[in-house]
């Protein structure tokens, strides 16, 4: 009897400690997002929190923010093409890596994943020097190439995970029924790994849209990108429009995340 009581107290204290730490952590995880949304609805001209009153005026002000809109459009265009490039090249590479045991493929896998761990700032600077030596100027296509390098690892990771769960017997069955390799790919493989590619593409899109270290070097004033424009604004003035733009980004992210969860099972693929 005494033993049982001791264990229950133990369990309680463990749950309490972990529970409190986890609660604090979750609060801190969610707090910034909530604060940004609330601040963007302020009716005053300053960023005081809590806001003295609520109003949509700053979101309305965004409609007049010419330069911010242009920067946003640039970021969207680059993100779109980066995602496309990453999805196509990344899926192809994932197929090759999943089906081979050779050390060369292992090395290739490591190389393709390395941008996730190496400082993106160093890479961005290296890319700038590189194009400068080649006599080129910063431009949208070059930005897309730079972003693709740092975003394709996301597609690679989720697609490889999907491929590893693909039942090889399905492929064998398809081939024994007379389908050629391309048909097998189109009809069997692709639909099954589709959600995996989709999740990776979504992550790549967000990573590109949000990218700062590469854009800092490869984007110049003529190809202004939204995160950098927002950063300039934050550092130089106390404009509440920045909060509204941030709020808009948060809402858009939430919507896209819900879509990705619904169609690609995002949360399942993250762990």
């Amino acid at each position, binding site marked *: 009897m005494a033993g049982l009581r001791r264990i229950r107290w133990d369990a309680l204290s463990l749950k309490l400690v972990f529970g409190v730490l986890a609660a604090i952590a979750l609060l801190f995880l969610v707090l910034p997002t909530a604060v940004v949304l609330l601040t963007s609805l302020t009716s005053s001209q300053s960023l005081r929190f809590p806001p003295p009153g609520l109003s949509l005026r700053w979101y309305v002000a965004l409609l007049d923010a010419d330069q911010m809109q242009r920067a946003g459009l640039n970021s969207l265009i680059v993100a779109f093409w980066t995602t496309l490039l990453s999805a196509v090249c990344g899926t192809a590479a994932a197929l090759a890596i999943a089906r081979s045991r050779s050390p060369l493929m292992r090395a290739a896998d490591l190389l393709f994943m390395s941008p996730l761990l190496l400082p993106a*700032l160093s890479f961005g*600077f290296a890319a700038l020097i*590189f194009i400068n030596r080649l006599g080129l100027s910063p431009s949208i296509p070059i930005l897309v*190439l730079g972003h693709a390098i740092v975003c394709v690892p996301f597609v690679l990771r989720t697609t490889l995970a999907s491929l590893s769960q693909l039942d090889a017997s399905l492929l064998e069955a398809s081939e024994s029924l007379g389908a050629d390799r391309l048909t097998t790919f189109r009809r069997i493989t692709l639909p099954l790994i589709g959600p995996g590619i989709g999740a990776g593409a979504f992550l790549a899109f967000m990573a590109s849209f949000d990218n700062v270290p590469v854009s800092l070097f490869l984007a110049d004033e003529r190809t202004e990108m939204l995160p950098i424009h927002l950063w300039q604004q934050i550092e130089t003035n106390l404009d509440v429009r920045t909060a509204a733009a941030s709020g808009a*980004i*948060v809402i858009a992210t939430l919507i896209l995340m819900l879509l990705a969860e619904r169609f690609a099972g995002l*949360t399942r693929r993250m*762990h």
Partner: protein
Amino acid sequence: MEADSRLVLPLAALFTAFFVAPLVVLLLLSLHGDIAMQGWTLGNYVKFFSDPFSYSILLDTLLLGVKATLVCLLFGYPVAWLCARAGARWQSVLVFLVILPILTSVVVRTFSWIVILGRQGLLNQVVMGLGLGNEPLRLLYTEVGVVMVLAQVQMPLMVLPILTVLSKLDPNLGDASRVLGAGEWRTFFRITLPLSLPGIIAGCILTYAASITAFVTQTLIGGARLIYMPLNIYQQAVGANNWPFAAALSIIFMITVMIVVGVLGAIGRRSEIHGRT
């Protein structure tokens, strides 16, 4: 099969042309005196290692990573623990909340922290309001503030790998331990923690690498006075136009990160072997 392996070529070509080549050029530039690359010299590296101001920036950055990673671990492990024990639907919700920050723009997140940490910000209002202090806390533009924000911003990178390992943990082991009379804490320290070590290491690698290269957070929260390696590289490259020196700094930075990641990765692999026995 041959045909399949050829599928790797497009990405391999992209990486060779736009990842490997620029890094090679970066290395070459760091070994020259000026952008025209006329004469070979180790001058940039000598300048870095002989100047206490320069390498203290690197050390500060490495230390910053350690602090942020430890805070992340302290708070991130319980979150992963909670997620692993949650039912399927709650787990989805919790994971959603965990990855929401990492998908929101880093500029947006850091900006909201400026609002929270300021002298009149939310945190100080709560602290003063609850009577926890007389003076408002000075968090903005201090290293404490940077560590706090980094820990929050990178926490998903710590939580997800640990969650992966915890969810695959065999519950029988825990049960066996309890049946044998061990308390919950003992079970945790003797069974759960060691077995989750690979996840912890993986989380630490990702968090550490991300923290020390977190340019936006370090600069927006730290201000221009707390100089870490990323800002240093940027100032030398764009502000001072000193490309060769900036290139040397970049190479040193990259090699340092690779060493740390390599060491942590090796520890991680060894802990995996231990975990299986």
